[in-house]
């Protein structure tokens, strides 16, 4: 069953077209993450979905019924707003029970519900406090609890973990994932964080400049991104992008980059020439000799190392292009490096993805 369907939504504020023709289908029970960089239109999407604003064009369909004309309160959506928005004059208990109070649920039924969601999020002992006595993570849990207590099947979480520290986010990510699986409800979750998206999502929709450019399971999007924004942003560390040129020479298509000149491998594009972008994931760049034939190799200078404990991000200068690579500390086959050291790097060309006008057109192939 389809829980949420957005059809051709568009919204403009003054001269700025914030959303252009957004369509999205969310199956019932899905954990849908809408990933987008800041100012990509995520919040506007949420506002249109929840009914806080009306779209200039398009329809919102919930549980099979067109709700475009219904007010926010009539859409029956559980909502976790950005930046908590806990009522400072209410206790935690009153904050959590707020959606039920508004729905005039009998008092006797409210308390067990509050206990249940508080238990789910581990905040039972905070119920009698006021929001200003809570830490950031506790506030966030209360806000999530207030969203989840609503008796419904669709929940919208608008970037709920933004601004929390790393460790706390990781814990809440686990909690959210577990909660969603437990309740078997539909979550629509916006974020600008790639790790959050990949960890949480059943499906990711990538929103860029007011359009959903790609939508799919996180594994698919990661392994086989069709759009340059997806490859570049939905990853940590971000994928390397280098500019290049597509050129025709004696019937063959060549990919020219500052690193090398390679053959193009893929279906012949409509426009077999012009500017392109080449994306390579950091984990595909190897420091050291190629383990097999047919790899691209190059000299590189080590610019910077960021030690993350388990792994290390190395910034390399390759012919004026900065590439990042990831070294696992326990990987004995990889060479360890020092700053300013000149090293040899190898890249499998089939991992060098060619994008033309933002769309994937093929990969590279080494020319003999």
């Amino acid at each position, binding site marked *: 069953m389809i829980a949420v369907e957005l059809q051709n939504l568009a919204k403009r504020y003054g001269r700025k077209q914030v959303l252009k023709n957004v369509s999205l289908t969310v199956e019932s029970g899905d954990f849908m993450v809408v990933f987008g960089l800041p100012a990509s239109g995520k919040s506007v999407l949420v*506002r249109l979905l*929840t*009914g*806080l604003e009306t779209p200039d064009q398009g329809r919102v369909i919930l549980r099979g019924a067109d709700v475009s004309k219904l*007010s*926010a*309160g*009539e*859409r029956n*959506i559980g*909502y976790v*707003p*950005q*930046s908590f*928005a806990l*009522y*400072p*004059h209410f206790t935690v208990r009153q904050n959590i029970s*707020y*959606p039920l109070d*508004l*729905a005039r649920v009998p008092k006797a039924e409210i308390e067990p519900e509050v206990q249940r969601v508080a238990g789910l999020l581990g905040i039972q002992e905070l119920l009698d406090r006021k929001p200003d006595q809570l830490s950031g993570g506790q506030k966030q849990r209360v806000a999530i609890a*207030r969203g989840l207590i*609503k008796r419904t099947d669709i929940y919208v979480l608008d970037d709920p973990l933004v601004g929390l520290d790393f460790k706390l986010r990781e814990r809440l990510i686990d909690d959210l994932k577990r909660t969603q699986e437990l309740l078997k409800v539909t979550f629509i979750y916006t974020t600008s964080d790639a790790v959050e998206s990949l960890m949480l999502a059943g499906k990711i929709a990538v929103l860029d400049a007011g359009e959903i450019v790609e939508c799919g399971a996180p594994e698919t999007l990661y392994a086989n991104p069709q759009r340059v924004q997806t490859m570049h942003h939905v990853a940590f560390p971000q994928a390397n992008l280098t500019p290049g040129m597509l050129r025709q020479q004696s019937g063959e298509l060549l990919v020219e980059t500052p690193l090398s000149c390679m053959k193009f491998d893929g279906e012949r594009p409509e426009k077999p020439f012009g500017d392109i972008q080449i994306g390579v994931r950091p984990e595909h760049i190897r420091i050291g000799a190629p383990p097999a034939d047919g790899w691209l190799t190059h000299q590189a200078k080590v610019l910077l190392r960021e030690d993350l404990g388990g792994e290390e991000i190395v910034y390399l200068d390759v012919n004026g292009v900065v590439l990042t690579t990831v070294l696992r500390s326990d990987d004995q086959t990889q060479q360890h490096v020092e700053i300013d050291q000149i090293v040899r790097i190898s890249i499998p060309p089939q991992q060098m993805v060619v994008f033309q006008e933002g769309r994937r057109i093929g990969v590279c192939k080494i020319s003999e």
Partner: protein
Amino acid sequence: MQSTRARTTVYYLILWLVAILFFLPVFWILMASFKTPNDILAVPPKFIFQPTLSNILDMLSRPNTVPYFINSLYLSITSVSLAIVVSFLAAYALSRYKFRATNFLMFLILSTRMVPAAAFVVPIFQMFNAFQWRNQFGVLMLYTMFSIPFSLWILKGFIDGVSTRYDETGFVNGASRLHVMFRVVLPQVRPGLIAAFIFNLIFVWNEFLLNFILGGPGTQMIPYALAVGLVSAGGNIDWAFVASLSTGYVLLPTIMIFLFQKYLLVGMTFGTVRGEV
């Protein structure tokens, strides 16, 4: 360490001196209301005297004194309360529905308070005469109107400080606009309401010119009584009466400020108006 403490002591000494200097006239009035007329004007001033309640009893027994107090209380509290209600509704609207010329509108509303009362008292008098508004209701409306601009400015500042996400969380959960205004936003701007209330209450409580010109028996307030009762039948200034009436007069603002000084401070720092009236 030693020098810091010495410096702090000097600062406090200066602060206390200035405060006492400012308080002296009030102190003189307070003392005078318990002195006999002879003691009031004694040279050198008498600090030790036999306190008497006769001034206060005399003041209260004059035919119009109690009505003056009632008028003052009624007009100031009612008009400011009305103004706060209107201002809260207007401030919410101006804060949440971003009308095209909101800032200009806010300026226009405040501009009514930029002109000194002396400049418009005559046209207002003529208008009130023509419409036959020179009664309690008319004066009440006038004071309400004059209390709106500052209240609106203070409250708009406060409501702007309440994130619209609070409103939206309410809406998504099925709350009405009225619920959001009175149950979600109102409790969060309580300091602003109190600050606006006190500022304007003191303004209306102290207002003299309009009251003097427009007023009739149903509207005359204590400042009017002070002006009229200042000179006694013999042509002398009736210090005993002035002192005892003033003592009663400063009671309400003093209590208000004492009780709500916390909010007054919040109002002055968070609101857009800093220490007006």
